[in-house]
């Protein structure tokens, strides 16, 4: 079973990275931290404002975690599920079960999303080195912890995206609806603050809880919530996926 999941994950990654849009996201992940870093450096050199480099790194990280990576997840999920359904390539005559196909698609999206985060982190680190003339190890360590723990809320978004894609028979409809839902989840807490912690969007900057004074109880609670959310939508998505017919 594991061998087939690994083989198909490899296939799904191959399919995605051959897409221009996916290449664009990777270019964005490597270039954007450099541009933001140098823009911040220029502002500081003009003495207009003082920006701590750690804030710049976290600003970059936040913009990717809150906007760019969810967009990438929804795009990839729409492509691998609804898009393939539309093209008739979702199920093929291969010795692999539907559960293995589903898990490998989810794994491929998670791996590529995380790879982008690594690219962002490395690019931000190199930019910081270029601007500060030395690596600030404290900053590098903090952003590295952020990098490691960010997989948890991202996995929850991947599960949600996989579930959403099962409802549609074409990629664009799935993508538009997923973005709308994500926007709604991000916006609703402004009107109804009590709802905030029911949506995974509230946990996208979850990594910040790991820095400084760590509140263990809050970490356990949020981890339990994110794990439950992921399990629920992953299972519901699979249920819909396995009953599909070409």
């Amino acid at each position: 079973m594991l061998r087939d999941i690994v083989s198909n994950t490899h296939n799904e990654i191959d399919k995605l990275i051959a897409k221009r849009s996916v290449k664009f996201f990777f270019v964005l992940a490597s270039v954007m931290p450099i541009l933001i870093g140098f823009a911040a450096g220029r502002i500081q050199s003009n003495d207009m404002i003082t920006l701590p480099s750690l804030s710049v790194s976290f600003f970059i990280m936040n913009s990717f975690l809150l906007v760019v990576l969810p967009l990438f997840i929804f795009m990839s999920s729409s492509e691998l599920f609804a898009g393939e359904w539309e093209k008739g390539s979702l199920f093929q005559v291969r010795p692999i079960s539907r559960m293995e196909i589903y898990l490998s698609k989810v794994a491929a999206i998670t791996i590529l999303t995380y790879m982008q985060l690594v690219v962002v982190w490395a690019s931000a680190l190199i930019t910081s080195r270029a601007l500060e003339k030395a690596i600030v190890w404290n900053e590098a360590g903090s952003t590295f912890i952020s990098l490691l723990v960010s997989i948890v809320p991202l996995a929850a978004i991947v599960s949600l995206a996989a579930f959403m894609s099962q409802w549609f028979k074409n990629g664009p409809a799935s993508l538009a609806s997923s973005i709308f839902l994500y926007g709604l989840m991000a916006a609703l807490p402004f009107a109804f603050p009590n709802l905030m912690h029911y949506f995974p969007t509230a946990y996208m900057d979850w990594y910040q809880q790991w820095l400084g004074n760590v509140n263990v109880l809050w970490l356990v609670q949020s981890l339990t919530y994110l794990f439950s959310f992921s399990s629920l939508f992953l299972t519901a998505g699979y249920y819909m996926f396995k009953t599909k017919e070409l």
Partner: protein
Amino acid sequence: METVLEVSDLGKTFKNGRGIKKINFSIEKGNVFGLIGPNGAGKTTLMKAITGQLKPDSGNVLVLGTDLEKDYKSAIRNVGANIGSGGIYTHLSAWKNLKMILRFYPDLPISRIDEVLQLVGLSQYKHDKASAYSMGMVQRLGLAAALLPKPRLIILDEPANGLDIDGMLIFRSIVQQLSESGVTFLISSHLTSELEKICTHFGILIEGELQCIIEKELIPAGKSVEDLYIERIGGVHVAGYC
């Protein structure tokens, strides 16, 4: 003789009332079974149900004695298929498309990809994206994909569509050579003249029902499969052959 494919009471009805009804047939090792029928008769539905792409409402499918529903992976490991063009990713090259299939068959060497591309005459275009291929080239690639895992049963849906004369000759030669070596085929087509050249058995499928199975050897001189098919479509019972 070994039975490679056994279909029993296979049925599938869609919301619009169309589909296939209680299909029963079997194919012996090395036979080439041609499925003939008008558009919408249920040929592709039958093939999709046989390969597990559609879940049948009733019946079961045995591939070399293995129940498709109970042990899908073991059963399908012996099957190569090209049903529609859905199996081809047009943003990838022919080589990459086949590489993705090969990953499920770790016993096969990487050289198998070039072997099948050579066989279908696509070697010189192997690194071109499939989106740049003509319909005939996509058909050839689909055939290569079906042949790649060295299956014992090959299922091809309208494989002659879009093929040029050269492609048709290659296709015919591959089917003949492989069937002689014991590979079994299930091929659907509306080109009865083409099927007549390669098939050993014919099944006439009309409105989701397998009306009759004709053995090529029993067709009298002067009659073609097309004649029998037209008689059947016209409601005339083809005594002695069905």
